[in-house]
């Protein structure tokens, strides 16, 4: 079989494939040693491939490793002389968790961020799924204009509207208030419906039609037909909206600007630790905080990315 193909290949007489043809000739002449050679070649390929990947991965992980080892350093400021700390200790974690001061109030930040994240997660997941269902599964007159509107709105830099939002919150007396931050994160979340819509577009329309014929209302179809089939995208939406308050620091910085550190979220708290005047006393604590935040977020991210890929590629193929 292989031979036949290689022969037909030779008949092709393609100049570009001279190399391969040469190897093919060898192939026929020395069949006995070929297998060994092949497996040797393959082994070399495997080793080279994995070595290259290992080198890349090592390069990619340097900062992460540095984060972890620095967080276990006995030194408080920035470690500038050696990559690994000279003395190891868990003092940074202890200080961070049990002895809060005016600058570092990690337990408080964590609690704040967690509360905000939960509420934002509920509101924005609902909004996103609602908009996605309406635009994907229903047909109404304003559908296309509304979707075009969303595209245009997404083009404005978020920072621009943020300034005015800040003033609106200020007039409503909602700055330096978690409610204000929750509103900022969740109120406009309906605009991020595209990935969820891309997924819902793949739910076969015949299923819904069957439900219509059985006399189901749109409301029942939403809950009993489409939602149960959309578990991946629901998980994705929930995790991504839960993560938003953990990842963002710009909006939090604008809304919670009073300088009362017990009110802050993790992001602004940690950012503040690297202030010029504080970095030399708090850098290792920053690293410890970074590690503590990264662990739950990484796990969530790992779960989410599987669904993310599905949503993105699914949505892209489906236009």
């Amino acid at each position, binding site marked *: 079989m292989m031979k036949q193909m290689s022969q037909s290949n030779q008949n092709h007489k393609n100049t570009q494939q001279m190399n*391969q043809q040469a190897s093919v000739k060898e192939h026929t002449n020395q069949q006995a040693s070929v297998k060994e050679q092949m497996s040797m070649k393959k082994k070399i390929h495997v080793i080279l491939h994995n070595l290259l990947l290992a080198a890349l991965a090592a390069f*990619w992980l340097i900062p992460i490793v*540095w*984060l972890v080892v620095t967080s276990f350093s006995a030194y408080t400021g920035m470690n500038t002389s050696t990559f690994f700390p000279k003395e190891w200790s868990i003092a940074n974690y202890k200080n961070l968790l049990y002895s809060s001061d005016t600058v570092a109030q990690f337990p408080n930040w964590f609690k704040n961020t967690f509360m905000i994240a939960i509420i934002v997660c509920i509101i924005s997941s609902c909004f996103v799924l*609602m908009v996605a269902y309406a635009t994907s599964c229903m047909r109404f007159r304003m559908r296309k204009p509304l979707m075009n509107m969303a595209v245009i709105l997404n083009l404005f830099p978020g920072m621009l509207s943020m300034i*005015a939002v800040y003033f609106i919150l200020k007039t409503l007396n909602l700055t330096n208030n978690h409610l204000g931050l929750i509103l900022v994160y969740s109120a406009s979340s309906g605009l991020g419906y595209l990935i969820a819509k891309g997924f819902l*577009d793949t739910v076969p329309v015949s299923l819904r039609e069957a439900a219509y014929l059985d006399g189901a209302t749109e409301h029942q179809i939403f809950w009993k037909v489409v939602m149960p089939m959309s578990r991946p995208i629901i998980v994705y939406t929930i995790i991504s909206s839960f993560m938003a308050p953990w990842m963002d620091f710009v909006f939090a910085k604008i809304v919670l600007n009073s300088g009362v550190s017990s009110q802050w979220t993790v992001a602004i708290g940690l*950012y503040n630790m690297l202030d010029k005047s504080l970095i030399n006393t708090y850098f290792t604590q920053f690293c410890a905080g970074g590690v503590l935040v990264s662990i739950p977020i990484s796990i969530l991210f790992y779960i989410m990315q599987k669904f993310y890929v599905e949503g993105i590629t699914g949505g892209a193929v489906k236009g």
Partner: protein
Amino acid sequence: MGKIQRKQKQPGIWKSLGRYVRDLWDAVVHGDLWVKASLVICGAGYVGRKQYVKGLLVTGLEVLVLLYTFLFAPAYVSKFSTLGTVKQEAIFNIVTMKNEFNDYDNSFLILLLSLVSFVIWFSFLLFYLYNVKAVYRLQLKKERGEHINSLKEDWKSLFNENFHITLLFLPILGIVIFTIVPLLVMILVAFTNYDQQHMPPTNLFTWVGLANFKALFTSGGLTISFGYAFTKILVWTLVWALFATITTYLGGILLSILINSKYTRKPKLWRLLFIITIAVPQFVSLLLVRSFFANNGIANTFCANIGLTELLRTWGLIRTSYIPFLSAPGWAHVMIILINIWIGVPYQMLIATGVLMNIPGEQLESAQIDGANRRQIFWHITMPYMLFVTGPTLITDFVKNINNFNVIYLLTGAYVTTDQAMANSQGKETDLLVTWLFTLTQDYYNYKMASTIGIVVFILCAVFTLLAFNRLIKGDREEMFQ
């Protein structure tokens, strides 16, 4: 075939507008007494068809809007043309023995609340016109002897054929209040002189026409000119977006091909290692990298130890005793793009992996049988397929990078510009338009210029999105795959 179908699906905007006006005209001319009455009292048409509660609700809404219009709005809307004339002044009140403020104007409140009024009025106008047509439709239904919904049935329809209204109401309300109104406010601010010298409530600001745009696009002159900084930052923004998009895109594809290669052992483990770097929140990882490459950071110690710093000094590439990775123009620009590769490639790798797995296997096989080598397969099969599927995201990525606040702001927080002309405009060489906008508002309260820049960013993004317009909006082939 496809074209004809699309045309039928999407009538032109003028055509649908014409139909809208004609329907409205029909309703007004052919409507009976009840329909004509609902031109004044919106609920009348419903009451005439025995939909009493609905009529009451609609009339109630009308009354609310009217009350708002006559009791609340005039105080602000009447001053919209000047944005207020009375400055805040403290007057000593003899009765209370205290300093009291006069009845002053707050320009920002005037602007904001006028705009809110306009939005309310516009929404109500749309509702009013819709209402006239709806009432006329009721009349037609009655004439034809069709069934007219009771309140209960109307309510039920909100969970059935009108379910989209229920679904979309709250999200759209949120978007209007927290995105559209703020955007409109900031667009208007671009035409005022709202800055640190004109801060309400102690001061007033007013309309200045296109002066801010002029200041942004012209340079030279005696006053602070933004033109110089703007050109520099605009060029850097575009260069950055181009390089950031292309490097991470190609890098991601190459990495995912490498990981998915048949020679790779344990691809899942490798993928996990790369994912870890992006799973760490950006404010942690980027701030860390910033400290890593700081002037007195560990990267510099390392370079000094192996003699690289000395070497660069003898070559005349640096004049300082350290390598200014993130603190000198040129160096910082290159470093930012390199660090962005570090943070962006794993993302693209994830997406590329998903797409690559969807490449039809037969295509690859037949290419291999025809004797194509790996490079040929990459350029003639993999890349065209990738580009076909992810082409539009390439452009959205470009737009996202124009607005990539995090990477620049977190990495160059410690950057201080030495260029006086840049410093005059409160910018620095590594700024993108959005980070410049942010600094202008947060540190210098220069809202007028920030808004102007914001509008420019929007135009920039809109132009690039128009390139992807056909795929994003028009070429919506969602139904084909359902």
